[in-house]
């Protein structure tokens, strides 16, 4: 089981800020493929990965990053702080 969190417009479009899903994905990218199967909204949100950033256990990572033993995977748009 993987704990997935969403922020900003991803949260709004997926319709939840967190969910636990049953996935045996070994990388962030594989998890994205599993998430796209969840609903039409999920599929649409993840259709353009260039607009999405990922964090594994609160560290920014690339899509090919392993997720072995990760507690929390987050997806969000490019950040706009400052």
């Amino acid at each position: 089981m993987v704990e997935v969190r969403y922020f900003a417009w991803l949260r709004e479009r997926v319709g939840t800020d967190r969910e636990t899903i049953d996935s045996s994905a070994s990388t962030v990218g594989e998890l994205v493929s599993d998430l796209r199967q969840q609903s039409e909204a999920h599929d649409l949100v993840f259709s353009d990965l260039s607009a999405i950033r990922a964090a594994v256990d609160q560290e920014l990572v690339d899509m090919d990053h392993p997720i072995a033993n990760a507690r929390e995977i987050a997806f969000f748009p490019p950040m706009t702080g400052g």
Partner: protein
Amino acid sequence: MSIDIRVQSAAFDLGAEVNAFATAAQGAGAVVSFTGVVRDLPERALAHMEIEHYPGMTEKALSQIAKEAMERWHLARVLIIHRYGVLAPDAQIMMVATASPHRKAAFESADFLMDYLKSRAPFWKKEVRYDGRVDWVDAKDEDEAALAAWKKR
């Protein structure tokens, strides 16, 4: 503690913060501060801005950025305050302050902190207009370019 990171919804007193920072950095010689303010839209169309963040990761990311600046410019002290929640036009969103024995190091490191926290700290801004329109603020390509430039230096 020479690195002070605060993530809060409450407003901060810019003058008091800069004064306290300068006092605590006694002996450093140069103090630079930058403040980000909510910019209105044309024709004063902005009702308010909403800032969302990722509690936990935000503090981690800001601490890493501050630590990197401390080491690279041998700073005496770093302060980052960043707000989240609902902010009215002209409200202060965030501030950074740096203290160093050298003016250039203080300026450069403050600039570096701003470039980094703009695209590496997990904050997202949303603009809510009086006419009901709501837009998430897009990240700019030039923000990523600014980061790449720091790596080359």
